[in-house]
C-alpha cells in the first residue's frame, strides 16, 4: 500500500505535513481569498509504482488512484515513468494547453508505423491533460499559480480487448479529477490576442470520444489513438538537457522499435499559434506543407481512410499527395452531405472566401462548424494558415476567372 502525504502548497511557501491514511480532504487551513492564487491540498505519492492492475481493468473514480503522476493535482509533470511528448502541429482545442504523456509497461515498446498511429502494446496508457490559460500569452501550469486552470485529463488505455477512453474532469480547484464518462459543458473564458472570448468548453462523453478515435477496418469500428504518429512526433522536445528528436529519444529509451533513418520519416512542419505571424513570409511550398500538416492533425482522423467522414470524399492525410489527389483535398469538390447556401466547393483554389473548408473552420455556429466536436472557438491562426494556403494554390477549373 502506498502511503499518502498531504501537501499544502501555499503561494511562495511550501509546507509539508504528513497525514496518515489519506482520509478527509480538509486541510484545516483558512479559506482562500478570491483574488489570490489558490492554496491547494495535493497528495504526493510516496510510491512511484503506476497502478497497472487497475488501469488494465477498472475505471477508477479518481484519476490520482492510478498513481500516474507524483502529485494528485499536477498531471503536467513528474509522471511515474511516463514519457512526455509534443506534436508538431497539434489539434486545436479552444486554445487549451495540452500536456501529453505515454506510459508503456516495462520491457515493452511501441512498434513504428509509417502512416498510422504507432502499434502500442497492451497496457499502454496515454494521458492528455487540457488546461485553459487565462491569457494565451501566458501558458504553463502550476498548481500554485492561477495562470492555467485544469479542465480534463483523458486517459487512453490499451486494454486486452482494445483501446478505451476514460475522461476525467478536474474540479474547479484543480485538486482532483473525477471519472466523468458523460462529459461536461463548462462555461469558459480566455483572453487571446488581448480579446476576451466567452464560450462553452465541452468535455466529450465517451461515445463522442469514439466519433474521432475511430477506425473502420472494414469489419468493425475500432477505437484508436490519434496523435502519436511518426510524422507528428518527428520533432524536437526538451527533456531537460536541450532539445532532441522525440523519435530517436523514444528509441534510445527502449520505447520504440522499428524506427527507420529519420531522413526517411515524414515530418509535419511545426505550426504553433505564434507562427501565424510568419505566414506572409511562407513560400507556396511551406504553405502546402504546413496546411497539410494542420489538416492532417485536425481533420484526417475523420476525413481519412477508415475515419467516420471518409465517405464524404474529403480525405486529408498528410501522406496523400496534393498534386495527384486534388479532389481528395476538396479541390473543386462539392460536399456530399452539406449545403452551405452560397458556396459550392470544399476548396476553391485562389479563393478561400468561397471555400467551404475555410468557411466551416471559421464559424462557431454548431450547424456548420468543423470539427464537429471539440471546438467552441475559432482557431484564428489555423484559419489564417488555411486561408493563405487556399489562396496560394494554382487555379483550377472552379477557380474564379483571373
Amino acid at each position, binding site marked *: 500500500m502506498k502511503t499518502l502525504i498531504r501537501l499544502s502548497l501555499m503561494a511562495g511557501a511550501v509546507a509539508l505535513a504528513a497525514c496518515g491514511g489519506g482520509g478527509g480532504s480538509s486541510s484545516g487551513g483558512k479559506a482562500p481569498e478570491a483574488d489570490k492564487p489558490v492554496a491547494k491540498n495535493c497528495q504526493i505519492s510516496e510510491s512511484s509504482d503506476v497502478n497497472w492492475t487497475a488501469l488494465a481493468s477498472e475505471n477508477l473514480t479518481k484519476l490520482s488512484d492510478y498513481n500516474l503522476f507524483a502529485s494528485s493535482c499536477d498531471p503536467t509533470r513528474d509522471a511515474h515513468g511516463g514519457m512526455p511528448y509534443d506534436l508538431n502541429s497539434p489539434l486545436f482545442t479552444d486554445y487549451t494547453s495540452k500536456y501529453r504523456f505515454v506510459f508503456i509497461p516495462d520491457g515493452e515498446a511501441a512498434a513504428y508505423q509509417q502512416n498510422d498511429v504507432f502499434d502500442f502494446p497492451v497496457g499502454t496508457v496515454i494521458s492528455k491533460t487540457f488546461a485553459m490559460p487565462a491569457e494565451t500569452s501566458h501558458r504553463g501550469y502550476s498548481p500554485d499559480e492561477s495562470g492555467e486552470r485544469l479542465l480534463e485529463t483523458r486517459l487512453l488505455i490499451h486494454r486486452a480487448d482494445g483501446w478505451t477512453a476514460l475522461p476525467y474532469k478536474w474540479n474547479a480547484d484543480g485538486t482532483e479529477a473525477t471519472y466523468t464518462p*458523460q462529459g461536461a459543458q463548462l462555461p469558459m473564458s480566455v483572453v487571446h490576442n488581448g480579446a476576451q472570448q466567452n464560450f462553452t468548453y*465541452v468535455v466529450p462523453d465517451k461515445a463522442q470520444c469514439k466519433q474521432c478515435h475511430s477506425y473502420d477496418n472494414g469489419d468493425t469500428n475500432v477505437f484508436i489513438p490519434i496523435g502519436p504518429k511518426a510524422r507528428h512526433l518527428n520533432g524536437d522536445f526538451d527533456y531537460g538537457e536541450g532539445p532532441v528528436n522525440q523519435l530517436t529519444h523514444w528509441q534510445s529509451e527502449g520505447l520504440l522499435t522499428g524506427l527507420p533513418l529519420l531522413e526517411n520519416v515524414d515530418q509535419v512542419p511545426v505550426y504553433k499559434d505564434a507562427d501565424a505571424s510568419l505566414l506572409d513570409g511562407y513560400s507556396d511550398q511551406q504553405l502546402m506543407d504546413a496546411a497539410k500538416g494542420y489538416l492532417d492533425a485536425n481533420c484526417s482522423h475523420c476525413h481519412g481512410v477508415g475515419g467516420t467522414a471518409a465517405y464524404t470524399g474529403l480525405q486529408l492525410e498528410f501522406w496523400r499527395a496534393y498534386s495527384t489527389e486534388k479532389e481528395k483535398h476538396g479541390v473543386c469538390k462539392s460536399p456530399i452531405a452539406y449545403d452551405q447556401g452560397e458556396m459550392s466547393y470544399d476548396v476553391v483554389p485562389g479563393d478561400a472566401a468561397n471555400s467551404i473548408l475555410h468557411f466551416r473552420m471559421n464559424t462557431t455556429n*454548431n*450547424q456548420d462548424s468543423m470539427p464537429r466536436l471539440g471546438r467552441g472557438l475559432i482557431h484564428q491562426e489555423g484559419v489564417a494558415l488555411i486561408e493563405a494556403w487556399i489562396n496560394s494554390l494554382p487555379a483550377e477549373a472552379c477557380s474564379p476567372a483571373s
Partner: protein
Amino acid sequence: MQNNRNKGLVGALPGLAAPMAIALVMTGCGGGGSSSSGGAKADDKPASAYSYPADMPADVATKEMACGGEDAIELDANNITDSAKIAFLDAQDGDVIVFPEGKFNLQDTLTLDGELGGARVDGVTICGQGMDKTILDFSQSVGDDGLFITNINNVEIFGLAVTEAANNAIKLQHADGVKIHYTATVWQGEPDKGNGAYGLYPVESKNVLVENSYVRGSADAGVYVGQSENIVVRNNVAEYNVAGIEIENSRNADMYNNIARYNTGGLLVFDLPIGNGAYGSGVRVFGNEVYENNTKNFANSSSNPGGVHIVPPGTGVIVLSTDNVEIFDNTIEKHDTLAVAVTSYLMADEDAFGADYQGIIADGWLPLVRNIHVHDNSIADTGANPNGALIQDLILLFSFTEGLQWSHIIYDGAAEQLANTGALMGLGIGAYEAGDKVCFQNNSGATIGYPYDPATSATEAGPTLSPAFGTDLLDCSHEPLPAASLVFDGVTYGCGVDDTTSEHCAASL
C-alpha cells in the same frame, strides 16, 4: 465563381430566352384554379412544442404508452443531460431508458454508440411520456444533432419530442432494426434555412419502421430514410418541411397513409449519385394525403444538383432517378406547381451521363427512371401558380407554346429518349422495354406533359425537344410491386403483415 447551379437540361434549351422570364405571370391551367398557397400562414402553426395541430390523426400527439417498467432506467429530471448521457453510454441489451414528463433543455447531443465496448448492443428502448409531455429541447445545446444513435440492433423510440436541434433531430446510423413511433421532431416558427436538416433520420440502416409520428420545420426532409433497406413509413404527419417525407437511395420501401402538407414538396423518392454503392429501387407510395405543399423552398441552396433546394414549391410527389416505383391511391390536391413529377437526373444536371458521372455509374447508379407506375390517384387543384427555379424554362415552354398547357403531372422523358435512340448503348442500356416504361393511368383526369417525347429520336447534341400535353399520354401499366416489410426484434412489420386493417393492406393480403 462560375455559375454551376441548376444546369438542368431544359434550362439549357435554345429559344427560351431570358426576357420571357420577366413576363412570368401565370394563370391557372385547368384542374380548378382555386389552389391555396397559404401553407405557411402563422395561424396554422402550433403555438408551442406542447401543442400539435388539432387535426392530427387520432391519438398520434396524445398517445400514451407505457414507458417504464420494473427494470427501466429512469432519467433524472434535475440533471437530464448527464443522466441521459450515462444511460446511453451504459446501454445494455434490453435496456429501457425513460425520459420523464416535462420540457428539458439539453446541453449536448445525446450519443448512443452500441459498439463502445464488446458486442453490439441489441434491443434498447428510449421513451418518454408522450410527444406532448416529454419535450427535449436542444436550442441551448452545444452539439449539432439532438439524438445520435449508431452501431446498434433493434432500437425503439416513442413518446417524446425533440425540438430545435442545430442539425438533425434524431439521427440513426448503422442500425439494424429501428422502430420510431409517437415521436415528434419540431422546429417552430416560420420556415427558416437555419432550422435543422432532418427530423427523423435513419441512414445506412436496415429494417426501419417510422409510424404515427410528427415532423415539422426541417430545412431538408422531415422524415428522411437514406441508404437503407426494408422500410415502412406510415401514418405520419409531415408539415412545414422542405421535403415532407423522403426515401433516398434506399431499397424495398413502403410509404403509406401519411399526411404530407404545407411542405415545399410532399413526398420524395430520390436516388442520388452519392458514390458509395447504395442506390435506390422498389418504393411504393400509396394511400397518402398530400395537399397544399406550397411553402417556399427554404433549404440552403448548394452545388449538389440533387439537393432538396431544387424542389419546386408546390409539388406533391417527386420521383427522381429511381427505378421501380409505384404511386397509387393517393390524394394529391391544391398544389401550386405539380401534383406528380417523375424525372431522370438530367433535369437536375444535364451532364448526368457525362465524364464526371462515369465513376458513379460504374458504382451502380443510373440517372434513369424506369418501371414507374402512377395510377388511381385523386389529383385536383394543381398548377395555379407554377414556380421553382429549376423548372422556370419548363414552365415557360408549356405555358407559351401553342397547343400546350401547364400540366398536373410532368415526366421529363429525356433519358428515355436517349435510351430509345441507342445513345446509351455505351453503358449497356438499350431502348426501354415494356417493363421499363413510365406509366400513368386513371389519375382522375389529371393532365400529363413531357418536354421530351420518348418516341422521338435524340441527336448527337442530346435529346430532342418534343413536348406534348394531354390526359392520356404514357398510358400503360405494370404489375404491382411487392409490399415492403421489415423485421424488428423478431417481429415482421408491413402492409398486409402486421397491418391487415387499413384499406390497402387488407387488400394486399
